[in-house]
């Protein structure tokens, strides 16, 4: 990489910088995913446990979003 190109890449990196998300954001997004995963777990025992956890978590997310939007 030439000096000119390195300068360009560095400058682009500066304007593209964003801070990492709060852990809560990542956790909530994973909880949404868990609900989808729970729907496909084949073993009945696993499915019940994961689905129950996913539903609980989804309900919490809905509550949080409702609180935030209200």
């Amino acid at each position, binding site marked *: 990489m030439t000096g000119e190109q390195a*300068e360009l890449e560095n*400058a682009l990196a500066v304007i593209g910088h964003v801070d990492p998300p709060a852990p809560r954001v990542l956790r909530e997004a994973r909880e949404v995913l868990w609900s989808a995963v729970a729907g496909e777990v084949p073993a009945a025992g696993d499915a019940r446990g994961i689905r129950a956890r996913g539903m609980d978590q989804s309900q919490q997310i809905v509550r949080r979003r409702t609180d935030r939007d209200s």
Partner: protein
Amino acid sequence: MDTDGVLIERSVRGRPDAFVEVVRRHEIAVHGFLARRAGRQAADDLLGEVWVRAFAARGGYDPGYDDARPWLYGIARNALRAHWRAGRAGGHAAAEEVVDPWDDVVDRLDSAATAQVLVQAVRALPPAEREVLLLVAWEQLTPAQAAVVLGVPQGTARSRLHRARTALRLVLAGSPAGSSEESE
């Protein structure tokens, strides 16, 4: 350590929870992709939707690709398009503007003259060139990976990247030839 491809294939073959590990690996990167293009609030709101879309589409993933980021960015890009089409982003109504994060970028800028000149120059690039440039510069993808995100041939991505870099280098060098007209 298993590759993303192995984990996704495993998630298709009876172990859907294996997909969660892929998410853990790339969640900060995908959030950054969204935040750079739509702002933090939209990124926060859309991240879970991206995971659900990706999980639903994982059966189409080619496990030969070790790194799932290009695929995930492509899904995030589609989620952004849908987000704007639904008019949920206020002020960003046009779907073709989904990768036009400039209001957010300007807010982040300090007073560095070079950065401001660069922002104007990037804004002036044709959107197709800008998109591949930012996938490489911001998301640290190779041109080949950027091509996967955009669904274009690798050669197309490389030529767009070359044109974009040339235009921006000219701007940074202070050449009047680095105007938007030069890059179009």
